[in-house]
């Protein structure tokens, strides 16, 4: 008897694309994250500084308005320095938000043994990692390069060609700088989440990663009387890169290329850590 020869019809309808499938993870995760009060508050607070910057740009382009109000018009300049300050502040908020939202992304899946379930779907480990990265990347984009580009667009609209012509490359620089930072912060958050299953500790570890490396940089630079240890500090390295990208004079220390290489190395190391942890079966040997 060959019962298995009875007519079995698999689903014949259309299927969504691979990218759409992978995006099912972030869609669900974003909904869940936005239901967390702390994350929502942090997200809203992170948008205050961009709003203030919008006000600054408006005033910078409407100095006559200040004069008519009877005030003395201060010097308002919208240039590389302005955007560098903007990036620095938003990078801090991005790190805090990643420390809040990141630990809940991978740790619960590892604790619940959910990875075998996910990987027994037609998606790969890389898809899973990219999806989790997209959760944080998408959220951090909302407070980094998206408002940054809005600021630049507003400045372009208000200042006109005379500003756009010499500063057009600033938009690309801001975008590239923020994308690099978002990628780094997201990778740190995911790696911490993959290694530490308690969210609070994982969040602390994310912040600790940046503080400890900053401390190490200070100590090594002092002891070795050099400034090459700056390469160990992702915050400082990023500052150097952003300065270069925005056309602002970079402080004394390693060059932009060296800093970019150092950050690329860190990201590669974090990717390797994730690769080791994101396995459907935990091997205890």
């Amino acid at each position, binding site marked *: 008897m*060959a*019962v*298995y*020869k*009875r007519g*079995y019809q*698999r*689903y014949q*309808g*259309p*299927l*969504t*694309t*691979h990218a*759409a*499938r992978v995006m*099912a*993870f972030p869609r*669900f*995760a974003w909904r*869940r994250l936005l*239901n967390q009060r702390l994350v929502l508050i942090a997200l809203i607070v992170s948008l205050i500084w961009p709003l203030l910057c919008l006000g600054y740009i408006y005033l910078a382009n409407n100095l006559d308005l200040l004069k008519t109000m009877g005030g003395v018009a201060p010097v308002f300049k919208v240039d590389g320095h302005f955007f560098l300050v903007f990036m620095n502040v938003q990078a801090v908020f991005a790190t805090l938000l990643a420390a809040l939202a990141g630990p*809940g992304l991978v740790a*619960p*899946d590892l604790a*619940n*043994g*959910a990875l*075998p*379930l*996910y*990987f*027994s*779907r*037609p*998606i*790969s480990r890389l898809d899973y990692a990219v999806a989790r990265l997209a959760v944080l990347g998408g959220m951090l984009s909302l407070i980094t390069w998206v408002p940054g580009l809005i600021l630049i667009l507003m400045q372009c609209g208000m200042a006109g060609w005379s500003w756009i012509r010499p500063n057009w490359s600033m938009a690309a620089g801001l975008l590239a700088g923020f994308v690099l930072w978002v990628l780094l912060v997201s990778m740190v958050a995911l790696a911490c989440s993959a290694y530490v299953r308690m969210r609070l500790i994982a969040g602390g570890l994310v912040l600790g990663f940046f503080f400890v490396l900053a401390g190490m940089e200070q100590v090594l630079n002092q002891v070795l009387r050099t400034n090459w240890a700056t390469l160990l500090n992702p915050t400082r390295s990023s500052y150097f890169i952003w300065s270069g990208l925005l056309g602002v004079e970079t402080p004394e220390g390693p060059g932009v290329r060296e800093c970019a290489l150092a950050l690329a190395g860190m990201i590669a190391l974090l990717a390797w850590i994730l690769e080791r942890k994101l396995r*459907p*079966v935990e*091997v*205890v*040997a």
Partner: protein
Amino acid sequence: MSSAEVVFDDVSKFYGDVLGVNRVSLRILPGITSLVGPNGSGKTTLMNLMTGLIRPDRGTILVRGLPPSDPERLMRITGYATQYDAAPRGATGFEFVATGLELYGYSRAEAARLAWAALERVGMTDAANRKVAGYSKGMRQRVRLAQAIAHDPEVLVLDEPLNGLDPLVRAETIQLFREFAARGRHVILSSHVLQEVDVISDQVILIANGMIAAEGQIRNVREEIREHPSQFLIRCRNAAGAAAALFGLDHVTEIRLNDDRSGLLVMTHRGDDLSRVLTQLALQGHEIESVIPVDENVDAVYQYLIGGQS
């Protein structure tokens, strides 16, 4: 080799120095197949291997003609429910099943339709919009089963699927397995409840220390275990007379009379010969009421093959 089989060919898997499974060769036909063995014997490793979650160190695996290294195609025909509570925090039962379907590539509308259908099959529609975190153990088990069957797979792989289910739901779940199997699909499950395995399985795979101890239908497996004589409980009026008649047979190794003198336990190396002799005794006037094989079940086979190793 039929493409409707799950085939392991000389498969080994080691976790570093730890043995997962060693030199496993199997052909699993459609129907309900139970993996039985003590903790750490390699049941879950076998399941993870056939779903492609881990790669074998040697040997090949084919699931209905598809290698596990091709998850894009394999996972469309395979449904897997692990033994863990794998639902994302905060997800409702419906979201858990529907989001899982979206990962297969179903549109949201189609995923919602299939998710409801699956939840209905496991009797979870009432609780579908409640968070999985608030479910009882049995409900979690059912929602895990729902996510495994939602895309109508040809091969259903279930790790301890009957744990935590109340008797009624257990019966309904077993019925669901039978319906799946009757449609020519594979239902491969692991269980510690041997009596249940006995009742529901078309074939059993006994595994110990990462190696296959036996496979096939329980009766056939039992017949292969020659070092342990088969045990039959015979109920009859004149148990002493029957015992005397059977005692002279060379394949009968032991006979024990029941205290009530109306039954006897016979141990023999040749069950078929015993049946023939009992038929003759019945024709000679012995009133034989019943002949029950005592150790033709998973429990006994497990004891004989694995009992000492667990």
